[in-house]
């Protein structure tokens, strides 16, 4: 390939399972710059974990190529294993070893020591240090996740892969965790993080929206929101369920999803009269205390839009 660029580069990366019966990822093209905090956003089963496992050399690609910090994932896999940190989606440290022992173990696996790398993990480690003699299995979810992050960082990786690090963690710990990632980014570590939570996407430098093994769009979170081509309305009524049913049945409705107590709605066409006609329709249906506002789309709205607009927008690097 001849790429010596730092960061991550994927070219047509494909992987299927069960002898091709199940396509996990299909022709992934992706370029992640060094020091970037890059989010892989998509629902469960979109292929996020497969892509991570391909890039961390745990899986072999069927087709295509990729480099991590200029190292080829098939030819230089041994060198990649020296330089990347990987935190799998499932907590996979030794539950019967203590916090300190786990950390020591992973440091030794990479031929290093905890003390020589303590500066990198210091800010995170101080939070779990009071529990350093506690077995990993007895830590709370948030603490486990911090320990796992420490273990993934203990050998000063240049690229960090985090597979759904915040799944199953409480809101406060999630916020804290993203704060830690922002801190790591300032140290120049390239971070690829996957998450099914659309709200977390805003914390990334750039994100890729991934669905059914294919990348739908790559952009900054702001860029993705700005590229949303439709006018989006938030609608609210007394009876949200009936509102959803009626809105879906309305002939000019293009898309309609429930977001909490609101409905996010787009029309076929941009005619300003559409809103008035729609409201009249709802009144006829007997809805009370109706409100409708034009709103800025969220990442989730963009995701829904991309998912439903066929053919899928092809990805350009």
């Amino acid at each position, binding site marked *: 390939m001849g790429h010596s660029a730092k960061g991550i580069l994927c070219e047509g990366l494909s992987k299927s399972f069960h002898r091709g019966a199940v396509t996990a990822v299909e022709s992934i093209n992706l370029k992640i710059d060094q020091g970037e905090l890059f989010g892989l956003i998509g629902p469960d089963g979109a292929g996020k974990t497969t892509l991570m496992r391909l890039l961390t050399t745990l899986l072999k690609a069927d087709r295509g190529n990729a480099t991590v910090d200029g190292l080829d994932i098939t030819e230089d896999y041994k060198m990649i*294993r020296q330089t990347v940190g*990987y935190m799998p989606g*499932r907590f996979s440290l030794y539950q*019967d070893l203590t916090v300190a022992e786990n950390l020591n173990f*992973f440091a030794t*696996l990479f031929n290093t020591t905890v003390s020589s790398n303590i500066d990198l993990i210091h800010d995170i480690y101080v939070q779990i240090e009071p529990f350093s003699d506690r077995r990993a299995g007895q830590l709370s979810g948030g603490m486990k996740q911090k320990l796992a992050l420490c273990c993934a960082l203990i050998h000063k990786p240049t690229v960090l892969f985090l597979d759904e690090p915040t799944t199953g963690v409480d809101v406060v710990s999630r916020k804290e965790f993203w704060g830690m990632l922002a801190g790591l980014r300032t140290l120049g570590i390239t971070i690829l993080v996957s998450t099914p939570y659309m709200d977390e996407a805003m914390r990334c430098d750039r994100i890729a929206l991934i669905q059914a093994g294919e990348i739908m769009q790559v952009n900054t979170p702001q860029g993705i929101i700005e590229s949303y081509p439709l006018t989006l309305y938030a609608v609210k009524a007394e009876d949200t369920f009936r509102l959803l049913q009626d809105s879906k049945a309305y002939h000019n409705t293009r898309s309609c999803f429930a977001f909490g107590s609101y409905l996010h709605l787009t029309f076929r066409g941009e005619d300003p009269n559409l809103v008035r006609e729609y409201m009249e329709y709802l009144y006829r249906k007997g809805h009370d205390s109706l409100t409708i506002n034009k709103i800025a789309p969220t990442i989730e709205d963009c995701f829904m839009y991309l998912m439903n607009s066929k053919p899928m927008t092809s990805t350009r690097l």
Partner: protein
Amino acid sequence: MKIILFLLEKEFKQIFRNKALLPMLLGVPLIQLIILPLAADYEIKNINVAFVDHDRTTYSHRLVEKIKATGYFKMTGYSTTYREADRLIELDRADLVLEIPSQFENTLIREGKGHLFLAVNAINGTKASVGASYLSRIIADFNADIRFQQQQESSKTRRGRIAIQTSNWYNPHMDYKYFMVPGILAFLVTMIGGYMSALNIVKEKEIGTIEQINVSPISKHHFIIGKLIPFWLISMVVFSIGQFIVSRYLYHIIPVGNIFLLYLFLAIYLVAILGFGLLVSTYTDTQQQAMSVAFFFVMIFLLMSGLFTSVDSMPPWARAFAYLNPVTYFIEVMRGVVLKGSTFNDFQGHLVKMVGFALALNTWAWFNYRKTS
């Protein structure tokens, strides 16, 4: 080297912290070694005999008394009709029926010959054949007594007589415990080594820690060696406790041969068995799968190792299997060294085969262990 020591430290920490594992590893095999040899006793006692005595003479009484006096037989019936004895067999209260015909004493004295009828309940094959042969021996003995007596009384004819004296070598009293304990001990270390190594590695797969190991630069052989050494050491300890404490003080078995020779073979044999466990772990993803697969093979290893039944009396195909079974060789070495005092020269061939097993199983496992799926 440093990394292996560190892996060992981690493994031992985990083993010693596992509240269930250590008692399982040390306690269970020793309890089995205490219990199994007592049960695996081929000596048949308490054979129930029903006598049908149509004769009721001095001779017939003497025969019955002689049989009862051996201690192997228990008289469960003494009747004058065969039908009654037959009924006892049907009720499973008699294993053998010895029928003494009328005029037994008379014909024996006058014509020099007599007939006895022996009926055997062959539901329990071992008991039937062993019981029948015991009884035949006693009757032959009884026969010899009578002839000797007659010769003394008449002392005119001196006929030649062949007497067979058997002597049991290496196990003079034919004590089955001597024979079974070394074999069972060999089998127990097989189970520990095989199961524990298979389960341990699969456990890392199951809880996902193997992922973390796989993305690290640690090499395959370091990881494998770090996994095998703890179970090699534990198996050695279990064997030593079994050999020097249970065998010695409970069964009073002191190896006749060189104990270092035994350990040399044990050391190589354990590498082979741990390789087997490792191989199982590379083909399975969960502890349940690993347990099932290991159990299947260990069962075959056990029954086809010559532990309970002699390999020589197996049909040719089964014998071929037995010789593809590493357990067979180690049990032979165990029995040879412990009972017979066999030397290194006797088992050179076994050594070559065991090294072969160790290399083959570990190489296969090594190739099949993938850090990448």
